[in-house]
């Protein structure tokens, strides 16, 4: 069992891990940059150590400093969370070389999954379906030769390039030759290299990922799927489990593929295998995230497995404690970002002068901030995750809507209203959530649906507040109730 774990992260995921440590009886050590001093995660730690230096490279990405702190403070293990150093095989190796336990898979597994080409080859060998595609370096004849096995529609991409140059979508076989020639010409002009890569074009696909857990005793299981198709600026905002696109059969097939992927790299701990699922129910390996995932709570709510605690257990050499897959009901997570959704989701900053989170049945808040905290431009704008569980998808959407209506954040612009409208959006309600959904629904950008009544009411409220100097003494005096000394009663007897 682990005894003292350094959490090499910040914000809400550091809070999540430190709480799991506290519950497991493991001492949690937080590290924090100077500008994170006094934040919630440092408060939840048993020991909080300030990092020297400024900027990410000198602080949260500073492998040497973090390792030194771990050793100086008698830690036996390091949990990297997500982002930062979580998928750095060299750091995992350094941690192990220092005699500490790395809460995650082996450096080899990280490396194999971290390189897209290696991962693709490894997966093909393991029998996991990958997006059909072939590298072509033998000219136009070879393109024509491999195309039938790739299938239509297909995408021609310059092997050497990027940025759309040399990229051509081909929907019908008769267009292939002319398009391939054009693509190769473009590629040659742009990169001096006319090799192209032929890949199946997957339109209207869903991003669906499978959670896996593997312990040191050869047990590798999957915990069902998460659908994370709703994205803006390529970042997920709305995640759910189960996915409306999966039936039991497809879930089992994808779960088996995910376990095969994990076994292929001798995976240990918690990991996520991402797939693209086409409208016809074909699924293809995208990549494996060799760490805990932002959206892990939806799996926890649906399966009843505490993923972070299982990570700590597995790293400590114990068997995972969970039994067979038992999915129940429906969970949704939304990510609360400090950003202005009406302004192309541009990040926002400010002080959280009011931060009133919803409570009640089926509501879970994983937050890195609390009222009074400042949101600065130094870090990721994700402030918190709001997760709901309900017996059915419909009830979960209704519950999320209710919870978001209760959520008050003043002092920093957030995407609460955008998330709230998602809950009622017909495409979301129908489960027609594809990765291009936000662009599809709001091609010219989103703006809130707001009646003139609300706009006028807001103006009236501002007028009333300004006229009466509202809230100037909120909470700060507490003198409006006369409270007798609480000690006057302590020496009395009231049997």
């Amino acid at each position, binding site marked *: 069992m682990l005894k003292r774990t350094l959490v090499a992260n910040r914000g809400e995921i550091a809070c999540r891990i430190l709480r799991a440590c506290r519950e497991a009886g493991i001492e949690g050590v937080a590290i924090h940059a100077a500008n994170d001093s006094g934040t919630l995660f440092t408060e939840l730690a048993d*020991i909080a150590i300030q990092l020297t230096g400024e900027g990410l490279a000198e602080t949260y990405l500073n492998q040497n400093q973090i390792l030194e702190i771990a050793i100086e403070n008698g830690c036996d293990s390091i949990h990297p969370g997500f982002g930062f150093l979580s998928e750095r095989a060299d750091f995992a190796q350094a941690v192990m070389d220092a005699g500490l336990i790395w809460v995650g898979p082996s450096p080899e597994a990280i490396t194999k999954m971290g390189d897209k080409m290696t991962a693709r080859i490894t997966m093909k060998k393991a029998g996991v379906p990958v997006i059909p595609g072939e590298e072509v370096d033998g000219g136009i004849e070879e393109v024509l030769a491999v195309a039938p096995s790739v299938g239509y529609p297909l995408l021609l991409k310059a092997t050497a390039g990027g940025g759309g140059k040399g990229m051509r979508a081909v929907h019908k076989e008769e267009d292939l030759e002319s398009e391939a020639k054009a693509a190769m010409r473009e590629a040659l002009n742009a990169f001096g290299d006319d090799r192209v890569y032929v890949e199946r074009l997957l339109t209207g696909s869903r991003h669906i990922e499978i959670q896996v857990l593997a312990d040191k005793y050869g047990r590798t299981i999957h915990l069902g799927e998460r659908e994370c198709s709703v994205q803006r600026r390529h970042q997920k905002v709305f995640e759910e489990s189960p996915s409306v696109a999966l039936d039991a059969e497809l879930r089992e097939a994808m779960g088996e593929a995910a376990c095969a992927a994990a076994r292929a790299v001798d995976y240990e701990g918690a990991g996520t295998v991402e797939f693209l699922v086409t409208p016809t129910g074909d699924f293809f390996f995208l990549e494996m995230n060799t760490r805990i995932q932002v959206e892990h709570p939806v799996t926890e709510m649906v399966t009843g497995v505490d993923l972070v605690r299982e990570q700590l257990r597995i790293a400590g050499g114990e068997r995972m404690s969970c039994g067979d897959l038992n999915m129940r009901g429906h969970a949704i997570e939304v990510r609360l970002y400090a950003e202005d959704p009406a302004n192309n989701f541009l990040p926002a900053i400010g002080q959280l002068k009011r931060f009133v989170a919803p409570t009640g049945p089926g509501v879970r808040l994983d937050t890195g901030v609390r009222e009074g905290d400042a949101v600065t431009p130094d870090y990721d704008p994700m402030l918190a995750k709001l997760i709901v569980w309900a017996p059915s998808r419909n009830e979960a959407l209704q519950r999320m809507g209710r919870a978001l209506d209760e959520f008050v954040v003043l002092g920093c612009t957030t995407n609460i209203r955008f998330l709230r409208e998602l809950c009622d959006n017909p495409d979301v309600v129908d489960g027609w959530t594809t990765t291009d959904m936000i662009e599809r629904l709001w091609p010219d950008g989103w703006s809130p649906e707001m009646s003139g009544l609300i706009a006028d009411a807001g103006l009236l409220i501002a007028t009333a507040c300004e006229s009466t100097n509202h809230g100037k003494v909120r909470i700060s005096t507490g003198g409006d109730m006369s409270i007798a*000394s609480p000690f*006057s009663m302590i*020496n009395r007897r009231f049997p």
Partner: protein
Amino acid sequence: MEFKTSDGRREIDAHRDGSSFIHEGVIVHTGQELWMEIDGRKHKVTATKIGDVWWVHVLGHTLQYEVIEAGAVSSDDDSGLLAPMPGKILDVLVEVGQTVSAGEALMIMEAMKMEHKIVAGNDGVVETIHYKTGDQVAQGAELLSLSD
């Protein structure tokens, strides 16, 4: 600086160093946020003042410290029996001049939907009764007084 606590009056001899206060290895850092340091470990503290009382939350404990101004006389007079909370007098069980013994019920109050007995803390004679059945009383009001 002297405080009244559930253990009686207490005072601590703290060394002040800027915004930090130190006493026998315990350091309290003041500022926007309050932190306490013991053996190099920092712990978040929450404190707020209500009336004359500091409410302190530290390491899972909630504590109260009433500020005593230097030279002020305590208003807590042992011979008076104070209402433990606001409520209504349901019954007065004794009369002026009656001899009562410690533990004897003197009055019954209703508060928080429950009945509470007001009990003599010591033997004595009832000197004054300030309220009658049906009266509303404020918290801390002297209900009756006993002579020793």
